[in-house]
């Protein structure tokens, strides 16, 4: 046991993501309480805001750098992280449960012979070891679990762990040039989707369902999302009907989200949909059917016609914002 924690910081376009700072802050709080040392690692080409990690309690970051590593490579990234974890004898490695985190964490865990707990939503260290809580069955149940192997890998769900108070310390950044990265698996292109904002990363989501009656009426949902700076989400029914892309689907066979505000428009609230969004902090439901299950988990509801309520709501929010 070396009592060391390593945090992986995910960069996209040369910027460390907010979810990585959440993970860094959570891991540094744990390190302080359990008396562990902590440092961070990132992989990329040029990373601009990496020193900011110091504000979240992690004072040293090692960046493995090569111009070919600007985009993600499963093979190169996982090798570099695992090798550094071995070199520093880290016992615990933290990742964010993002699309990159979910891909790299299991690779690193095998290389380290570590057990893995994915998508943790809270970590309890009162017993001196880490007991993680994570959703199972798409959030219809939670488990409390611990890793019994000596080396441990955790991924933390984005947008759940509070960043809280931050300092203004800048982290010491050590840049290590990678001579020949293993690019047996590499990203050759990134195709940006047409949606401006992804539901997995949005603070506010406006989700439209079958109650919109057709793809042609989704402009109402998009307009409301626009005035709120929100992402557009949807239910499985509209994806299966071909009205909306699967990347917007929220629920058991779509994405699980926990934004600050979730506005469900014309969504009845099937159990599979609720599983994907019930951990949202504030839920608003607009649906004609006052008995729709969505109202049983909504903080505020309007049991009215979406075609009447939505335009009025868009105007009211515009007024409130101006």
């Amino acid at each position, binding site marked *: 046991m070396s009592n060391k924690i390593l945090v992986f910081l995910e960069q996209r376009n040369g910027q460390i993501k907010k979810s990585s700072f959440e993970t860094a802050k959570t891991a540094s709080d744990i390190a302080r309480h359990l008396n562990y040392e902590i440092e961070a690692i990132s992989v990329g080409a040029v990373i601009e805001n990496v020193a900011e990690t110091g504000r979240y309690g992690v004072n040293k970051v090692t960046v493995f750098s090569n111009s070919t590593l600007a985009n993600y490579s499963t093979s190169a990234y996982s090798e570099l992280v695992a090798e550094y974890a071995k070199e520093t004898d880290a016992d615990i490695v933290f990742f964010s449960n993002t699309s990159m985190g979910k891909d790299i964490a299991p690779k690193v865990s095998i290389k380290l012979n570590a057990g893995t707990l994915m998508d943790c939503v809270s970590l309890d260290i009162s017993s001196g070891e880490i007991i993680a809580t994570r959703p199972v069955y798409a959030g219809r149940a939670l488990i409390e679990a611990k*890793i019994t192997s000596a080396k441990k890998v955790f991924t933390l769900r984005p947008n759940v762990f509070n960043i809280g108070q931050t300092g203004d310390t800048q982290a010491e950044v050590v840049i290590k040039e990678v001579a020949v990265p293993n690019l047996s*698996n*590499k990203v050759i292109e990134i195709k940006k989707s047409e949606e401006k904002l992804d539901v997995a990363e949005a603070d506010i989501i406006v989700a439209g369902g079958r109650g919109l009656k057709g793809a042609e009426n989704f402009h109402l949902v998009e307009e409301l999302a626009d005035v709120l700076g929100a992402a557009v989400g949807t239910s499985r029914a509209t994806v299966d009907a071909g009205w909306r892309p699967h990347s917007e689907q929220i629920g058991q066979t779509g994405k699980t989200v926990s934004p600050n505000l979730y506005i469900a428009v014309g969504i009845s609230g099937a159990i599979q949909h609720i599983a994907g969004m019930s951990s949202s902090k504030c839920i608003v439901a607009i649906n004609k059917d006052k008995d729709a299950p969505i109202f049983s988990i909504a903080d505020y509801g309007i049991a009215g016609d979406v075609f009447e309520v939505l335009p009025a709501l868009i105007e009211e929010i515009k007024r409130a914002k101006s």
Partner: protein
Amino acid sequence: MKIAVCVSHAPDTATKIIIGPDNKMIDPNGVTYAINPFDEYAIEEALRAKEKLGCETIAISTGRTANKESLRKALAMGIDNAVLLRDDAERDTLSTAKALAEEIKTQSAELVFFGKQSVDYDNSITGQLTAELLGYNCVSVVVDFKLDGNKIIAEREIEGGREVVETTLPAVITAQKGLNEPRYASLKGIMAAKKKVIEEKPALESENAVEILKMKKPPMKHAGRILGTDKSSVGELVRLLKEEAKVI
């Protein structure tokens, strides 16, 4: 070349989840189990590769005898053979991956498909763990897959778009919804699947690295207020979002 597809037998997504008496797992009584929905995309993609390359396909599952139902579904859709790695114990993802990797090695399958996650424990890593144990390349959460000789071009879903990944065989691909439209099993396929013998052998035993201490229901969200039945409530709603919930 042989293609394998790994199949999980999971509670139907519409099933009500009740915590079992030991407070560590669900009560299986009254739960309908079915093939993990993401595995159907994996099977479909395996079948498309088979049709293109004319090679053999095998479905593999690890767990209890009941898993044969999902293996039979794979056979009915058109997979050639199936094997159940019998294991009655509760296994974590690492232990499951070790058993699957061992069988994939035995079968010398060079292209392996998984669903991107199983809708029970939602870990979404069994495919990646298995790939790493085998030393195979891996692309997870795939929505587009092309194989040209030894070369793979696959698109994986990420936040706000897709990554186009280039890699080579041998490889593990985990399938996301949208990758394809899974076929329905034909009556002929269902009849033929009934007659097929599913090979059964003990799963490789290995220790779990994760211990579940407790399973519980998530805190219930209380039903809130219905503010009204028409647009006259919109002003009140915006006020509450601003002043009470403080979210806009």
